[in-house]
């Protein structure tokens, strides 16, 4: 049986852990607010961008752009894997990585090569362990996430796609739905699946724009940016999701600490009482013996 002192030390330890998890919870909630603000700031750009793309998509019938062209034979699949740099976020990273790896394995089973473009340390570590090829990895930069980062990932993937070393590209990231829900999502990045066509279903606006350069030229400018916008959106979501997941995980941990302190205190009291009882029996026994 644990001694009184052992139990006391353990209670102290659990209380300290609780302080840490509580602090991490608060830090995560502050960071989540920052991440959500960034999503908010991105929205005007994204909205306008999709408006424009929708306008143009409706105008151009069959814009032949290399980024739109699906390859007849897919030999190499690229996966952009967005995860967090740090752990202690519950199953958040594991979920994304598992989804991506499952996908990679199914592609492998079809005889395709799989390459990973990693953003975030956790994803890179997991993928590296399994020996997949990793052309680029951005590690330790999730904290300073900006559009430039998304642009560099996007550019790299597009270069490889246009250069022929990739035939299709998917992105895996944690979609931010709510504080309690951040499911892993896979998004086909390249070739661009009839970009803006869904928006094109909306009846074309009455406005007759003058385009400069002509529609196809503009699309050639818009499409690469579309890829970057998609990547950026994925990264922003991942960052928000990470903090939300960490908040939930730390909240749980704090609650578990409380429970554990309760259980340990009970044990402490029981042990103490047991000790007192034993002592009393000793004394009473001694007195009885003397009487004899």
């Amino acid at each position, binding site marked *: 049986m644990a001694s009184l002192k052992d139990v006391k030390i353990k209670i102290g330890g659990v209380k300290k852990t609780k302080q840490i998890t509580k602090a991490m919870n608060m830090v995560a909630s502050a960071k989540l607010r920052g991440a959500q603000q*960034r999503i908010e*700031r*991105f929205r*005007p*750009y*994204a909205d*306008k*961008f999709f408006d*424009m793309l929708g*306008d*143009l998509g409706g105008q151009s019938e069959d814009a032949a752009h290399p980024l739109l062209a699906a390859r007849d034979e897919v030999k190499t699949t690229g996966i952009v894997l967005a995860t967090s740099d740090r752990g202690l976020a519950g199953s958040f990273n594991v979920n994304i990585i598992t989804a991506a790896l499952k996908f990679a394995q199914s592609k492998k089973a079809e005889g395709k090569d799989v390459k990973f473009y990693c953003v975030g340390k956790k994803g890179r570590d997991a993928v590296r362990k399994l020996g997949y090829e990793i052309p680029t990895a951005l590690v330790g930069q999730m904290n300073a996430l*900006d*559009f*430039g980062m*998304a*642009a560099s990932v996007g550019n790299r993937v597009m270069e490889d796609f246009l250069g022929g070393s990739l035939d299709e590209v998917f992105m895996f990231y944690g979609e931010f739905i709510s504080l309690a829900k951040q499911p892993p999502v896979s998004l086909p990045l390249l070739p661009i699946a009839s970009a803006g066509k869904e928006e094109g279903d909306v009846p074309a606006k009455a*406005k*007759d*724009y*003058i*385009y*400069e*350069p002509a529609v196809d*030229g*503009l699309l050639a*400018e*818009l499409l690469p*940016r579309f890829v*970057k*916008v998609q990547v*950026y959106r994925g990264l922003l979501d991942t960052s928000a999701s990470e903090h939300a997941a960490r908040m939930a995980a730390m909240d749980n941990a704090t609650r578990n600490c409380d429970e554990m302190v309760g259980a340990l205190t009970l044990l402490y009291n029981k042990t103490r009482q047991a000790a007192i009882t034993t002592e009393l029996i000793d004394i009473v026994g001694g007195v009885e013996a003397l009487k004899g």
Partner: protein
Amino acid sequence: MASLQLDIVTPDQLVLSRAVDYVGAPGLEGEFGVLPGHIPFISALAIGALHYKAEGKTRYVFVSGGFAEVSDDKVTILAESAETAENIDFARAEKARKRAEERLAQKNEAVNNIRAESSLRRALVRLNLQGKN
């Protein structure tokens, strides 16, 4: 007098939103000017300096390419990055210029010339705007 609403948005923030009298922007096929009453117009932008007139003053904004949409006396600029002249980090631009020039001077196959050239152009445009506002 009728005026234009100028909005400059980047993925990271809303750079500028105000009423102006005139906007001159670096289109991909040449500079163009927008006055109130302009017909609806969409253009791709080159790396360059955008300027606008408001309250009798001309002000400059750096844009690193993107798009401009003109409709209903509203000018919306979508740029990957944009900075008003007073917010440009000139020290950084100077460093970027040196780095780009070095890269171009190396004439190395491994160096992506197109990328170095456009980063040189960005740096030069930024430096040109020094003290303009």
